[in-house]
């Protein structure tokens, strides 16, 4: 990640496909993991409990977004199948888990995989058109799925729990201890985010991941070399929806409520924005995209709050900040994509490559 890699030569396929490209990478990952595990403690001691809660809450939102972005990237980035119905799968996961948690009093370690599996099942059904159609046509088919899922949840009291279409869920408990504060929930979310990252990294370097990439690059060629398109396309939909379902469940436990209005079409678009900005077909890209899309509005607002008062009155600022946020957000997305169409992941690689030989470029 941050290291120079000269002097290492890989002589076997196993080494080439290893999870850690270099021995030192293990240490980097370990350091990062320690940092993340210690994050709430660090922020608390540095900033005090009140501020730590706030900053950790932002990280929490990012962690949830990371899981969703990874899932969508498996489908869109790796397999090349467009989905703009991903928020629909999230709501499937959310309502499955909420119903199980409320009606059968099941703990999160059962409802979470159940939510994911239910979303995966629905995902397979929605994925069936992908066997015949591609590109924009598939996008419309998944859009239809989003709307159908919304409608069904909205009109089935057995699923939605009444006309309000929201189900209150108790906080997750670990060994009988309910996780309530942002810093407690952080560990809950971090665990699943790390699991999702490791899972995706392993998936994409496996046989399945390579089959996905082959389908994305040229599906006819992939079929000729013996990849079962039927199976792998549906697998991609299933895995991707599983992630989406888990994202929905995480949201549900994080907020304490399953509500279909959290998973409207705008949410689908937000996640698509994440992976496009971050970089299609890359794990790091999904993470960077999730960080970027979640953080940018917050950073813009904080900046405007502190420097805007030099130019405007507070009343004007209240009007300007929201508009500026949208404007700058849109502008930055365009700028980033023009500068580097392959997203933040590529940008990061460029920076890394530059420093790899620094200060001896050329």
């Amino acid at each position, binding site marked *: 990640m941050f290291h120079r890699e000269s002097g290492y030569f890989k002589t076997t396929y196993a080494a080439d496909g290893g999870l850690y490209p270099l021995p030192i990478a293990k240490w980097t990952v370990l350091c990062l993991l320690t940092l993340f595990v210690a994050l709430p403690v660090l922020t608390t001691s540095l*900033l005090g409990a*009140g*501020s730590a*809660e*706030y900053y950790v*809450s*932002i990280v929490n*939102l990012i962690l*949830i*977004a990371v899981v969703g972005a990874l899932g969508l990237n498996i489908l869109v980035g790796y397999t090349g199948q467009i989905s703009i119905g991903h928020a629909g799968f999230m709501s499937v996961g959310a309502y499955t888990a909420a119903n199980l948690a*409320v009606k059968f009093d099941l703990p999160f370690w059962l409802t979470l995989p159940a939510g994911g599996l239910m979303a995966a099942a629905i995902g397979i059904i929605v994925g069936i058109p992908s066997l015949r159609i591609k590109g924009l046509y598939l996008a419309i088919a998944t859009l239809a799925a989003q709307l159908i899922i919304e409608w069904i949840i*909205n009109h089935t009291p057995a699923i*939605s729990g*009444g*006309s*309000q*279409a*929201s189900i*209150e869920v108790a*906080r997750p408990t670990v060994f009988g201890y309910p996780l*309530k504060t*942002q810093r407690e929930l952080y560990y809950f979310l971090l665990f699943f985010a790390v699991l999702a990252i490791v899972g995706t990294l392993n998936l994409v370097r496996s046989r399945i991941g390579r089959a996905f990439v082959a389908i994305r690059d040229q599906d006819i060629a992939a079929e000729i070399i013996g990849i079962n398109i039927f199976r792998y396309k549906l697998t991609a939909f299933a895995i991707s929806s599983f992630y989406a379902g888990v994202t929905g469940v995480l949201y549900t436990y994080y*907020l*304490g*409520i399953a*509500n*279909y*209005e*959290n998973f409207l079409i*705008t949410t689908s678009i*937000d996640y698509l924005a994440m992976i496009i900005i971050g970089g299609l077909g890359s794990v790091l890209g999904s993470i960077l995209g999730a960080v970027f899309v*979640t*953080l940018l*509005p*917050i*950073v813009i*607002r*904080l*900046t405007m*709050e*502190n*420097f805007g008062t030099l130019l405007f009155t*507070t*009343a004007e600022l*209240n*009007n300007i*900040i*929201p*508009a500026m*946020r*949208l404007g700058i957000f849109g502008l930055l997305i365009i700028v980033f994509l023009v*500068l*580097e169409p392959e997203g933040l992941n590529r*940008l990061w690689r*460029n*920076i890394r490559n*530059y420093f790899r030989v620094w200060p001896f470029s050329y």
Partner: protein
Amino acid sequence: MTRHLARLTASAAAAVLLSTGGALAQGGEIVIGVQCDRTGATQTVGVFFCPGNHDYVAVINSKGGVEGRKIRAMEIDHEYKVPQGVESYERHKKEGAVSILLYGTPHTQALAAKLAEDKIPGTSPGFGSAASADGKRYPYLFPVAATYWSQAAAAVKFTKDKLGGNLKGKKVAYLFYDNPAGKEPLPILEDLAKLEGFELRTFAVPAPGVEMGAQVLDITQRYRADFVIAHLFGRSPSVSIKEFKRTGYPLSKVVSFVWGSAEADIEAAGGGAVAEGYNTMQFAGVGSDYPIHNEIRELYKKEGKGPPKEMASTVYYNRGIFHMAVHIEAVRNALKAKGANAKITGADVKEGFEKIKGVTLGGLMPPLEITPEDHEGGGWVQIFTVKGGKLTKNSDWFRAYPEVIKKHIEADGKKS
């Protein structure tokens, strides 16, 4: 490229540092968190609603604050997105907000549990869930204005009055936006249909609600409704007005819930001439002739400015004033109980909310009476009717069928 990135991170880091510094600089100020949507799905409301919040605070502060303490209303726009609403809530909490003006039904539901855990009262006038009127079940959530259930009851009462005091055998159509908020009043309407003996038929308008020719034609030509109760949002109220006008149905036989009741809806439908007779439901006063408006105009005049342009949209602007005024009163009650210089917490302000009674702002506010049991404050509404292109007062503050609503709140409490 690296330079760009470096600059971006530098400014981000600076912003973070400064914001933490800013939080420490508060003296005796009291912070009230304001969630707002000036750019998202409901921005047509937010751009008038939120300035109302701030102008009211400005008047209070210009008069020396509440019990001598200045108020800082800290607004965060969440674009009507839930993750950003959660972030804004945590930010308000960090800044030490003693109460929060929520905005949006999904946000209210997403934050309901957090509010109770952190002991910070939040208010959801005219949105959120009707069941949250139960103060015992949702101790830190205050609808403060009529919920959709109360609005439904009031609409039926108004219909009854308009149809000569008897609803037996009458046909009432309920035209609603097909989302959870639109469906929420259904159980109340069904109950009242049985109680009053009228026939109720429902007509759902699917999102985005700009196409309802079929439903309106159904109501006016096939069903031939005696009265229409409309519960629509966003662009759809103006579309409904146009469609009723087109089919020749008298708009005086239509009553709209609170989110289809603004000047903007009437203008978008083609102005007062088209909407003549249209009945609107209000949880705050309409018009800009209340004493508070003069105070705001005075304040702007002192700064050498004309009255704020948002004031022209009186329905939403006044709701903004109302929303903030409830918080100011709660803080005032808390300071009275704790002493003017005491440090007050969210729990104190919650008790302050539960003592609100007899604050009217010269008629802009309903005769609100919030108690530990009833966080809705009675569920009062007023009807304003379009006459000669202007919203004119049709009824005084009233509420209807409180016993039916109470029954439903209790039933909902038992369900979970």
